[in-house]
């Protein structure tokens, strides 16, 4: 898990851990750019001769599928839902490279279970932004937001203390997590509608 980018797990000091956090964020950004490259290639191939709105016609049904999943419907989504970042990497790579590898894995997004409808909507909307420079800025925003959980997992130098703090900070009820899924579904839906209106103009 990304929370293992942590001094209590790697044994490094806080200064080096701060560097690992930067490496993790860079990994997330790189992974997100890989997803963008794949999606942009599909978008460019589709819209080479067809109008831009055809991309919405192709992408939005997938977003709707994951929105329904967020709302509790039992639907199958087109990416793995029960995998985690490869834990064995922590035993073969130094902590800095683990941070980059975990970041990249999670930045790609569709290789693990931690993906809401907003993530899919984010990726399929990127080709519509119209500027690679702006896309780069948006990817950095995504990477920074995804790094929050790493920073908030900081909990002392002993593993026992880290574990207790993680359990305390992530102690929450099912209702809150359900509300979060619904909020993601609402934001994905609202954003998809706004983007569609902007494109169809």
């Amino acid at each position: 898990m990304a929370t293992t980018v942590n001094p209590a797990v790697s044994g490094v000091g806080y200064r080096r851990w701060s560097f690992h956090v930067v490496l993790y964020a860079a990994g997330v950004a790189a992974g997100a750019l890989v997803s963008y490259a794949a999606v942009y290639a599909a978008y460019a191939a589709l819209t080479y001769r067809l109008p831009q709105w055809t991309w919405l016609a192709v992408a939005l049904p997938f977003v709707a599928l994951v929105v329904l999943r967020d709302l509790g419907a039992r639907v199958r989504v087109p990416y793995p839902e029960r995998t985690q970042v490869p834990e064995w990497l922590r035993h073969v790579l130094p902590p800095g490279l683990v941070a980059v590898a975990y970041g990249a894995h999670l930045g790609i997004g569709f290789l693990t279970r931690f993906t809401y409808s907003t993530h899919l909507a984010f990726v399929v909307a990127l080709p519509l932004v119209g500027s690679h420079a702006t896309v780069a800025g948006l990817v950095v925003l995504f990477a920074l937001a995804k790094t929050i959980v790493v920073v908030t997992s900081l909990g002392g130098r002993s593993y026992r203390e880290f574990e207790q703090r993680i359990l305390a900070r992530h102690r929450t009820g099912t209702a809150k997590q359900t509300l979060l899924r619904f909020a993601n579904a609402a934001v994905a839906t609202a954003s998809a509608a706004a983007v569609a209106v902007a494109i169809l103009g």
Partner: protein
Amino acid sequence: MAVDVQPALTSPADRLLRLAVDPITIVAFAAVGSAALAAGQVGQVAPWVALLALVAGWSSAWSP
């Protein structure tokens, strides 16, 4: 000797870090952000994608 970390779990830093990752905090941000963009009748794509980026990234602290 076992280290008693219970007092540390209620320190101001712990409370702040817990608030930063609380689902309600993320939901509140998503609601305010969406309302602000909708009220401002933002017609460009990038601001909405920025909202998606922030909500998606922040929400990933929790498993869907």
